[in-house]
């Protein structure tokens, strides 16, 4: 069976959930081979094996010293050497760029924001703010596919996870843009927005930069915090938490929208959430068209009560 390369997302050796999703999807197509860049493969390997990785390619951390291009050189080389059936990456902004450059090198095609992929590498996409479902395929070369986090349910299956060190001789072109510093901003204890199983978002209805009503509920649920553009533009919450067309695309099991009207651009970033709960004082708010459960009311009353109720039931 042909290898399917899966680019591993990890933070210092700790594997992100999306990687287990990609390994699960890769097994439909062929034999998953994880591609690990940087330190920590020793500790992360067990988890890759648990989700069916037969091989783990380990490449040196120096690849992270330059923007995107080194990873593309690595993936293209591995894919060519192994005559891989496909390459799967998570559809994060950075990995979509990696996917694009890799496909150029391979002379193949790239499919992004994929919400499902089958054994024949036909992909499903949710486009135009979730209003249209498309199916697509790559018609030339080794398909490079960027899959949205939370799209595929991870299923365990034992793999051998045989480690193989790889070295790449980076081209000069790959070293053009050097990362000279990494700045970590208020990460905190909350899960990462794009990955989180639960997201609680606040909009203009929150009313001020005091987002504690949103954060309190998020923390009770172990959720990530998101924000509408109106809240971000008002300076109430940092830009990297914006959900929507020009922000993050999230697809959690549960999305709770507090004081968000549900504009099409916001929906574009959360419409594929499995369960949607909305609290809004306007019964006509379009967000209710999406909601599995909605409360017409003041979020400053409903959310704190919900937070307390969750605490009580734990």
């Amino acid at each position, binding site marked *: 069976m042909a290898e399917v390369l899966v680019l591993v997302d990890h933070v210092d050796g700790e594997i992100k959930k999306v990687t287990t999703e990609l390994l699960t999807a890769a097994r439909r197509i062929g034999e998953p081979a994880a591609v690990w860049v940087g330190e920590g493969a020793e500790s992360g390997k067990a988890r890759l094996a648990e989700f069916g990785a037969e091989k783990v390619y380990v490449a040196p951390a120096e690849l992270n010293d330059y923007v995107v*291009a080194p990873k593309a050189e690595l993936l293209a080389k591995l894919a060519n050497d192994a005559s891989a059936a496909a390459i799967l990456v998570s559809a994060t902004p950075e990995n*979509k760029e990696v996917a694009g450059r890799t496909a150029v090198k391979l002379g193949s095609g790239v499919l*992004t924001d994929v919400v499902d992929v089958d054994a024949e590498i036909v992909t499903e996409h949710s486009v135009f703010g979730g209003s249209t479902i*498309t199916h697509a395929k790559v018609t030339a070369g080794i398909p490079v596919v960027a899959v949205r986090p939370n799209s595929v349910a991870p299923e365990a299956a034992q793999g051998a996870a045989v480690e193989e060190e790889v070295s790449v001789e980076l081209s000069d072109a790959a070293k053009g843009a050097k990362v000279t510093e990494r700045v970590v901003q208020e990460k905190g204890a909350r899960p990462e927005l794009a990955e989180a199983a639960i997201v609680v978002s606040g909009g203009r209805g929150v009313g001020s930069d005091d987002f504690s009503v949103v954060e309190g509920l998020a923390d009770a649920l172990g959720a990530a915090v998101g924000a509408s553009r109106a809240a971000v533009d008002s300076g109430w919450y940092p830009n990297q938490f914006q959900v929507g067309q020009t922000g993050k695309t999230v697809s959690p099991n549960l999305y709770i929208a507090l004081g968000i009207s549900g504009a099409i651009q916001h929906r574009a970033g959360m419409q594929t959430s499995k*369960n949607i*709960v909305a609290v809004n004082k306007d019964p006509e708010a379009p967000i209710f068209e999406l909601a599995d459960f909605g409360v017409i009311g003041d979020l400053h009353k*409903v959310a704190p009560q919900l937070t307390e109720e969750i605490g009580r039931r734990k």
Partner: protein
Amino acid sequence: MGVQGGWPPAMNIVVLVKQVPDTATERKLSSDDKTLDRAASDGVINELDEYAIEEALLLREKHGGEVTVLTMGPDQATDSIRKALSMGADKAVHVNDEALHGSDALQTAYALSRALGRMEFDLVVLGSESTDARTGVVGAALAEYLELPQLTLAGKVDIEGRAIKVQRLTDYGYDVVEAQLPAVVSVVEKINEPRYPSFKLIMQAKKKPVEKLTIADAEIDAAKVGLANATTETVDFAPAPPRAAGTIVKDEGDGGTKVADFLAEKKFV
């Protein structure tokens, strides 16, 4: 490739602009060839490209030089060119050829790289993502084709002489990325606040030069662009099935409890 250095270091900047269907209108694919149905909705300039134009104008104000708009698209795309010129760009290049219809993201990057190959520039600025296709790969693919440093997802750009430094947005905050010009920069929304065109600039824009290029002019290989040669194919499309109607209740002082019941039923608590 024509890349301008020289002293004093005036900056020649090319801004990439894409015309997209207005997100506020209903967007569709065409049943004929499964590409974007441009007749179905109004065309507007891709929102992030306004930020790219603004950044180019700010850099020109600081360093001197010229801002050239480059777009690839059908006749209607002239609307977006006008908008970019009326924000203050100096001139435009419009690659317009029936052979380009249905090009995918990589083919688009290839075609743009060819057009750029015959222009003189120090910097290419583009949006990090379009609102219609949203692939977010054009900037990276362009850097690959041009073999230039990729400074994408930039929230801040600083240039000193030939050295460029950007803050590249990441999940955890940002990376500081450094390179030498010429380079490709894509911008995110937080980078600036795009200006509104003034009446004077709108009038002036009508007289600014717009160069029209066919694929032959730009030396774009016809075998590498267009629907027939695309590296990806849309197999089918359909409207998304409507979500099952949910339960909407009015808060009677127990709204939070009712949500908790719903969450318990779904096993979230």
